[in-house]
Structure formats: C-alpha cells, structure tokens
C-alpha cells in the first residue's frame, strides 16, 4: 500500500546543529499531557518540549513521510496528527496518524487515496481538516467528506478502538448528516465515494472546524464549522442545525476556528474577519463588545490570518489573530465575553505578550503562528510559535523565554554548561536555586556526575551510574542532574569556582563550571 507506506512514520532522530530546535519557523504548535509538539513549516521536523523539566527538555525528530503535518491534538499517551500531501503526490491526498508521546512509534493511520484517473486532482475536497477531542471520543473532520466519530482504545495505546470510521457528509441545505465514506484503520481509504455523494446529494459542506461543548448539564454538543457557516448538533447524533451568527455581511460565512472552554461554558467562533461568542452552548452567538481605549477590537482588525490560534489561560482566552502586518503580534485577550486588551496594552501584566515580557517578535519582522497551553504545577505553560524567531515558552509566573536562543550543545559531552553559572543560593523570587546542567550524550549510558572544588577536592556526587538516554540536547533527568550548591555533608560551599565532571560508562567525559557566591554562611 503506497499510502500506508507513506504513513510508515518511522521517526528518525535528527538534530539541528546550530539551534536546539529544528527550526525558527514553527507554525504548528500543540500540547498533550507529556509536553508540547512544535512542527516546522515542512510539517516533518518537530521538536518535542517538556516544559515541566528544569531545564526545559527538548528533543528533536523528523517524520519520514511524503506529506507534512498540518495540525494535531494531543492525547494522554499519543498525539493525533493530520497530514497534507503535496500536489505532486499522485496517490494520496491526506492522512491521519498517531504518534506516541516520544514521537517514535507509529500507531493507527488512515490515508485518503485518490480515485484512479484523478491522480492530479484534489478538487474532491477530501482532506483532513479538523480534529476535536472529548474524553475518549475523537471527532475527525475531512473536508467535504464530512466528519466521523471514533472511540480511543481504553488502554490509551491506540487512537481508535474500532477498525473503521464512518464519515457523515453534510449535504447542502439539509440538517441531517449522510453516511458518505467508510475508512478502515491502517488501510488506504478510496475517496471516489465522495464523487458519488456529490452526484447524489449535491456538493456537501466542507468541514473546516470542530469543537465539542461539554459544559451543558445534560448534553454534549458538537459544533461544526464549514465553508458555509456554523452547525450544531448533539455529539453522536445525525442532525446538525445551522446556527445564526450576527455577521456583518449577510450570507454564508466560512468558519475557521471554534474554541470551547468547558469550565466556563464559553464558545468562541472565528471567521475570516469576525469573531463571536456564545454563553449558552452555541444556541446563540454575539459579537464581543468593544472597550473604550482599545484601539483594535477584533471586529476592526483587518488582514488577519484566517486561522487564528487560541489558548485559555485562567479565565482569559488569548487569541492570536496572526496579523499580516509585521510588527503587530495580533494578540487579543478576551476575558469571558469581553475584549480586554490587545498588543499587550492595558494592565494585564500576568498575561502580557510584548517586549517587556521578553516575547520580542517584532524586531525580527516575525509574527505569532501558533499557541498552545499545557497544564502544569502552578498554572498553564504557554508555548508560542513564531514565523521567524522560533518558540517562546512561558512557565507559570515566569517571563517568556525564547527556546531557540538556548544553546545547542556539542554531543559526546564535548560541552557541559551550567545555568545559572553564578550560583547565589536563592533565585530572585526567594526560592532555592540550583545549578542546572546542560549536556548531551552521544550514546545511551550510565552517568556519574561529581562536583570538585578548584583544588580538585571532591565536593559531592550528584548522581552515580544513573541511566540516561543519548541523543537529546539536554540532560534527560534535569531534576536529578543539578547541584544545590551544597557539599556532601549538606552545607553550602564556599565562594569560588567549582568543576562538575559528567562521565558516562560509554567513555564520554566532560566538565562544566559553576561559580558559587553564596558562601557557607555564619
């Protein structure tokens, strides 16, 4: 099977030489429970980021397939990705696949295969276009193919519990979905059936956005954005009624994104030029009111990308409108149903995305291309992808840091760095400080890390024969591979330069240095 072979996602590890991430242009960003995924513009090279580790753990990889990732969602033990294939591919249109959390092992896949005789045509409009999750239910959108529901395997190891997906197409002008396509898992799915649907029902709506609203007490609603508007129906049902939107222009409106915030019963719908919110599970939508003093409320924004990204942080929805105007991040903040700020204006220091908060994308003519949030201790970790300056990470209560500015370490322990190198015992916020280590093993091995003082007197052994993976650009277990600035008896060391030896049982050896300024104390 050509398609299946194309989706044979043997993830090969390959690392950038001058940068800890695979690229500085990372438009596809999303999160699962184990970390963030950030895909480069080619959709093949990715960086896997675990923000819960200190230092941030970054592992890079590349997918071996003909197409590229165009979107995805994270699940607990796998990531669900959808692919687009280049027009030059005469066989496959798009695919849906799952990777495990390390990005190493392909699991379930589906690929849409072109019907014979229409090798160069993708006008059938069948390509994976949207994903949504609700507990173990996956909702897959496939252009004019419609959408399908699937259940994940209970053990979390597989994406689909069944062996096939039945796509319901949405005939134009009708409220009822019609079975149009049956695709078997791990098998190429011929899309010629869509042509038959077209002949029979007229051109169906093309699904472009999906969201599940589970905030209602007695029902779970599926919202479907399409080329022609918004539909709403019960999850698992077949009836999807059009929802009226207070759009500026009458007629069809293409829906690009739908965001559901279940804990606050809020839905946001974004079209190419407008946005709407609902507080009654999608029964009715309203335009957000403008606030005096905010120069650019969403309804006056022009030129924004038709694919805004958004994350919830606390009770604030942060939307990246991806303005084409360089130098304008295009971020707009909504708190519940109100626009509260954009471009970092206003008194919202906890969520500012501007230079003062180290998210400096303006000077590089860059713009935000993606946002993702991941729950962590103390709040959400936010990850912002940009068009030219890489990834920015914001940990709870911390400033943004540009992950691309992190040092790409030489392999084989040829370089061991410490950060902070100047150890003062406590961080600026008063919390105990550690000297973190950055090193990169060439091979898997057992690592011993020992601290010596200037006179090469042994101070402390941090870890002994601890197994560590090779290949990553950071210490694999950063919470262990760090020094608290104390000697073996548990007391702070004196002021001075300290030498940290990292040795692997594979013969790799490297030294890092740290300078203690704390002193032993009285």
């Amino acid at each position, binding site marked *: 099977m050509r398609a299946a072979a194309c989706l044979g996602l043997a993830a090969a590890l390959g690392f950038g030489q001058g940068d800890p991430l695979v690229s500085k242009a990372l438009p596809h960003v999303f999160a699962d429970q184990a970390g963030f995924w950030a895909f480069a513009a080619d959709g093949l090279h990715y960086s896997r980021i675990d923000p819960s580790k200190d*230092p941030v753990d970054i592992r890079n990889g590349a997918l071996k397939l003909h197409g590229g990732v165009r979107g995805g969602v994270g699940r607990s033990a796998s990531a669900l990705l959808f692919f687009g294939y280049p027009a030059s591919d005469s066989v496959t249109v798009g695919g849906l696949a799952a990777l495990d959390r390390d990005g190493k092992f392909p699991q379930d896949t589906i690929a849409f295969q072109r019907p014979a005789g229409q090798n160069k045509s993708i006008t059938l409009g069948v390509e994976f276009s949207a994903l949504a999750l609700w507990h173990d239910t996956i909702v897959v959108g496939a252009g004019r193919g419609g959408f399908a529901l699937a259940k994940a395997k209970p053990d979390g190891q597989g994406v689909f519990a069944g062996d096939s997906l039945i796509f319901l197409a949405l005939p134009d002008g009708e409220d009822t979905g019609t079975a149009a396509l049956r695709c078997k898992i791990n098998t190429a799915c011929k899309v010629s059936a869509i042509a038959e649907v077209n002949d029979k029902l007229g051109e169906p709506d093309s699904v472009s956005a999906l969201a599940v609203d589970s905030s209602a007490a007695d029902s779970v609603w599926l919202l479907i954005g399409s080329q022609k508007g918004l539909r709403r129906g019960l999850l698992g049902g077949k009836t999807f009624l059009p929802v009226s939107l207070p759009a500026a222009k009458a007629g069809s409106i293409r829906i690009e994104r739908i965001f559901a915030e279940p804990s606050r019963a809020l839905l946001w719908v974004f079209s190419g030029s407008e946005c709407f919110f609902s507080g009654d599970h999608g029964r009715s939508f309203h335009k957000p009111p403008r606030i005096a003093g905010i120069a650019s409320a969403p309804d006056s924004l022009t030129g924004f990308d038709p694919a805004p990204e958004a994350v919830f942080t606390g009770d604030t929805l942060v939307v990246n409108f991806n303005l084409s105007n360089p130098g304008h991040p295009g971020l707009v903040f909504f708190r519940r149903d109100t626009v509260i700020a954009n471009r970092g204006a206003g008194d919202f220091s906890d969520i500012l995305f501007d230079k003062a908060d180290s998210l400096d994308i303006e000077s590089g003519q860059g713009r935000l291309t993606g946002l993702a949030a991941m729950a962590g201790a103390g709040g959400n970790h936010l990850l912002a992808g940009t068009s030219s300056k890489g990834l920015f990470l914001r940990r709870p209560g911390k400033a943004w*840091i540009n992950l691309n*500015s*992190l*040092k790409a370490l030489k392999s084989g322990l040829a370089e061991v*760095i*410490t*950060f*902070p*190198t*100047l150890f*003062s*015992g406590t*961080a*600026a916020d008063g919390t105990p*400080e550690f000297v*973190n280590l*950055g090193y990169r093993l060439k091979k898997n091995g057992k690592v011993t890390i020992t*601290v*010596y*003082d*200037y*006179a*090469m*007197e*042994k*101070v*402390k052994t941090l870890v002994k024969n601890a197994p560590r993976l090779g290949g990553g650009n950071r210490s694999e277990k950063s919470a262990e591979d760090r020094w608290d600035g104390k*000697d*073996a*008896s*548990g*007391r702070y*060391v*004196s*002021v*001075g*330069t*300290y*030498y940290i*030896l990292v040795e692997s049982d594979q013969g790799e050896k490297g*030294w890092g*240095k740290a*300078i203690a*300024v*704390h*002193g*032993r*104390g*009285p």
Partner: protein
Amino acid sequence: MTRRLPRWAWALALASAAGATSPEILGGHEGWLDRMGGGIRELGMGNTGTASEEAMPAAFWNPAILPFNRQTAVGVGADVRSLQRNGGYAGVQGRVAANMGFGVGLLNRGDWNVPAYDADEKPLGTARPQALGSYLGLGVKSSRSNSFGAAVQWYSYDLDLGGGTGNVNVIGIFNLGWYKRWGNDLKTAVVVRNLGLNADLSADFDQTTLTNEDAQGFERTASDFMPKTLVAAVFYTSHAFGKTLDLSAEALDYQLKRELYSSDANFHTQALRLGADWHVTDQLNARAGMDQGNVSAGFGFAFPWGRRKLIFDYAIVAERGFLTINPFAVGFRATL
C-alpha cells in the same frame, strides 16, 4: 530475656544523637588557594615547603625560615592547570638583620574561561575569576638553630564578569611558624595557619559579590572562614647512590569549624604530604612527591651565574588519582 536500658542511658543516647553532626569534608571549604601551595620546586615535592630553608615564598610556607635565608632571593613561577586554571607565585625574601628575615609572597589562582549563563541559559559572557593571596612575613632567630615567625595575609577575589566583582579583601589573617634545626640533617617546623583577630582566632571574612544587570544583577554577601590549619613538618637530609637526598614530610590538620578549637572529630580532616629532592649533580635535582591524592614530579636546573644562583624549576602534577594531569608548571629562582 532482655534488660531494659536505664533512663539515663536513653537520655544520654538521645543527647548524643541530637548533638551528632555529619562529618565535614574539606572539599568546598575556603582556603583552597592556601591548600594548593606556592612554589614550583615545592609542587614537585608534593607541596612540602614548611621545613625547607629553600622554600619560596617563605612568607607563605613558614615565616620562621626567613632568617635562614643568607642571601636575598627572588622567585617567580607559573602553574597552568587543566580546565583553564591559571596560577602562579612571586616572592622576595632575605635577611634584614643578623637574626631577622623578611619576605613577601604573592599567590594567584584563577580560571580564565568560565562560560556563564543565566537561569534561562542566556549567555552572560565569560567569567575570569581570579584570587590573589598576599603574604608579608617576618622571622626572628631565637638561637642559631631556632626561630619563630609570623605572616599576615591579604586575600582578594575578583569575579570578572559583567563589570562586577566578587570582592573582597580579607585582611588580618595570620600564620605563625616555628622552625628548628636539630643538626645538619634534621629540621622540623610547626605552622599554624589562618588565624583571625577575634576571640576564636578564626579567620572570618565577608565577601560581597556585585554584578551588573548584564550578569544577573545581584549582590550577595557571603560570610565565611578560612579553616584553621596545623602543619607539622620534618625535613631530613640523607644520601642515595652517593648523592644528597632531601626528604620532607608534612602532616596537616584542618579544623572545619569556626571556633577556637573543636574537639569534635567530625570537624577535622587530615592530610599528608611527602616529598623528595635528589641532588643528581651540582646543577640538576630530581623531585617527586605526593600531596594527598596528587602525585607530582619535577626537576630543578641551576644555571652557572658566578656566586649567585639561577635555578629553573619544573613540575608536573596529577590531581586526585589522575583526574587531571597538569604538565605546565615552571619557575625561576635566583639568589642575588
């Protein structure tokens, strides 16, 4: 059948447990500049110089040997070690009266390449921390074979990063020495190092580190002390293969607690230094030694210079069981 412990035994056990401390280790304590010694000849002999009349700089090793310098002597040396560690010494010493000697010594250790990053891995530049110990010594003979001496030392440390300094100047630390000739072949010495001017005679100091905003922008003041050190040394001259062989040994006790004297063994650690200097010819000496786990070797070569002496010294040292090997220690000594 078991007998219950009496209450007083339990109380004693609990009191002991409450007072128990984990043993201190020398690593990480201040005084590393002092512990690493000075002088390339002495480095080749396992850092033994306390009971040697040739020791340079004597103001550092033992001020009591200063009056035994018949001529004015000068010395300089560089000790470049692995991991970009630099070091060196300079000294001038001589007799200033019939029974009095005076000397000045400088010891330097540092690192010229510490790549520095902040907590977010943002590069801060390269730190080049340097420590400098300065010693001013005076020795007085109480008889032809007996002398006492005292040295005062300054200590300073410069972080050299981001326009900042880790600074301080530690003034007022004393070393006291005694030296005794027991004949032509046997000499002994005792030195107490790192004494301070306070009730505990503890060499306390505060060190403030300041860096500008480019280098984390912090100010920290560290309170610390130099471990009080007792050195007992012996220098014995013998013969091997018809040539003079000088043997030296030093036993050191470091008190790792800030008090006049601690009887708790947990706060003491000991070290042993051994050295040998074989006079192969009138011009050439071969040396070897061991300072704890540091094994060293070296040689000295005396260039003809009339009645004066100009000696080239070389040493190689392997630290802590060959953890590092350091072949770049050279120096010159001259008598004027």
